[in-house]
């Protein structure tokens, strides 16, 4: 019985990944545009760093190579993190827009399967897209990664996945609460994360209250840790506290977000919001 249930849920889990793959393939022109946009954004940040010397910044006063790498890592990671965040948080918006939301919500599957299926598809797609952009960056910039500790960077990257998905699921609740404004609110959340998580600067430059908020953002630990690993060869042992914090955040955020999603679904069913037009 248990085995059958698990097989049923696994089948649905695969169904969500398969569906997203088909959607990405069918909307290839949009996807190409977004990829180009992301690529251009990352390259712009890279060239901004490369051009600092022509803007009057003395080579002796700042390590331009390190700055370039610092900003490129931030831009690349943000591209990946924001993409995964966007895909997960738009799980509901997209279905409402297509008009399929009722069919997905009345399917005989657990909501956890639905959300994890969407998360898995987003992760796979996010990694593929970030890899393409990463290859372009490596090809266009002469990066010195001789000190990089790839194992630590990978471990931090993996640990960041859980809290990131939790945040994404939390944000996907917004369109359930407000069909009209939920989408814009998700963009606002993404914007706040960009501001407080130290994507392009250390959070120490932020004013006090924002710095405190930045310290509870999992992206702060991810960006800082990955930078330390790639720029200064941070060892895995030294990164363990950050990995621990990220995992702890994930352990709290994922179940909490799934629970909140369930409560939002109950509310949406009460108010009649689970439909195409809202």
């Amino acid at each position, binding site marked *: 019985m248990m085995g059958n249930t698990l097989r049923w849920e696994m089948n*649905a889990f695969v169904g969500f990944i398969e569906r997203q793959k088909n*959607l990405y393939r069918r909307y290839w022109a949009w996807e190409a545009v977004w990829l180009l946009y992301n690529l251009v954004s990352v390259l712009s940040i890279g060239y901004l760093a490369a051009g600092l010397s022509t803007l009057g910044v003395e080579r002796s006063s700042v390590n331009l190579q390190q700055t370039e790498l610092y900003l490129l890592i931030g831009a690349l990671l943000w591209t990946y993190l924001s993409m995964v965040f966007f895909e997960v948080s738009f799980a509901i918006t997209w279905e409402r827009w*297509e008009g*399929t939301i009722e069919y997905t919500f009345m399917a005989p599957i657990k909501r956890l399967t639905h959300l994890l299926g969407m998360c898995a598809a987003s992760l796979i797609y996010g990694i593929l897209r970030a890899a393409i952009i990463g290859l372009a960056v490596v090809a266009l910039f002469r990066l010195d990664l001789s000190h990089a500790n790839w194992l630590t960077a990978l471990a931090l990257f993996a640990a960041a996945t859980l809290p990131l998905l939790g945040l994404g699921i939390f944000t996907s609740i917004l369109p359930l609460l407000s069909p009209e404004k939920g989408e814009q609110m998700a963009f606002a959340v993404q914007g706040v994360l960009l501001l407080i998580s130290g994507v392009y600067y250390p959070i120490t430059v932020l004013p006090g209250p924002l710095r405190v908020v930045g310290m509870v953002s999992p992206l702060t630990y991810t960006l800082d840790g990955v930078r330390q690993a790639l720029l200064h060869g941070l060892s895995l042992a030294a990164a363990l506290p950050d990995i621990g914090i990220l995992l702890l955040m994930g352990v709290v955020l994922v179940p909490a977000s799934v629970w909140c999603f369930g409560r939002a679904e109950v509310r949406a069913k009460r108010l009649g919001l689970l439909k195409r037009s809202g």
Partner: protein
Amino acid sequence: MAIHESELNRTAVEVEGISKRFGEAVRPHRLMPWRKAKKPKLALDQVSMHVETGRITGILGANGSGKSTLIRILATLLTPDAGTASVFGYDVVRHPAQVRRHINRVSVEASFFKEMSPWENMLYAARLYGSGGDGTRDRVEAMLDRLGLPLDTLDKPMKQLSRGQQQKVAIARSFLTSPSLLLMDEPTTGLDPRSKREVQELVRSIRRDRAATVLLCTHDLQEAEVLCDRVLVIDQGRVLAEGAPAELVRSHADVGGSLEDAFMRLTGKRLEEDEEEKEE
């Protein structure tokens, strides 16, 4: 999912005193006084009904009469404010997972991922209902062939299909999951007469071959007359009459009258009048 032997001869749908109101009667918000409170609308008012397994039951009513609200409650997409509803003995609010395993739905809008093909949409649906492996493509082709849909449309994006073709794919999608209870909300709206007849024949066949129960919301009183074992006339959220079509004609229409005449007598208006009122 097909019904279990023990579920045969059971009541398929039991609805007791269901009410549903949209929009709460609230005072203007203290902090946002410019925001007007929505006028509440009573969509269902103490509706009760009983549907036996293996029957086709029609729900007749104009737009806004509460038909779709009732269907959405049974589909576990909406919770009632009062009353209870159960499907094969499972309460739609307390046991939605069990209810979902027995039902599927065809709505008036063919709801699909528009860029994806009929095959991709149906494969996705099959996956959510525990199948999608070997043999699914053959089943999908057989189903669409039976509905008279050219097989060369199977891999084209849905948006390139006509409204009628999309609706046929929606019907095939619901049949693919072999539901014990099929909730059909105006499934033949927008179909040409030939397609409409093909769909009606298919509805009969799933009842005949699979002992499935069908709840059919329709505007088309002729369709209800030929397809349904029983009908329920609903207006402004209230059930006005219930019975076999012939019984309703006998009780509510003049001699030689039709179901439409009975409907007019019961609701005090024609369906078209209601449509006009709504447009105004």
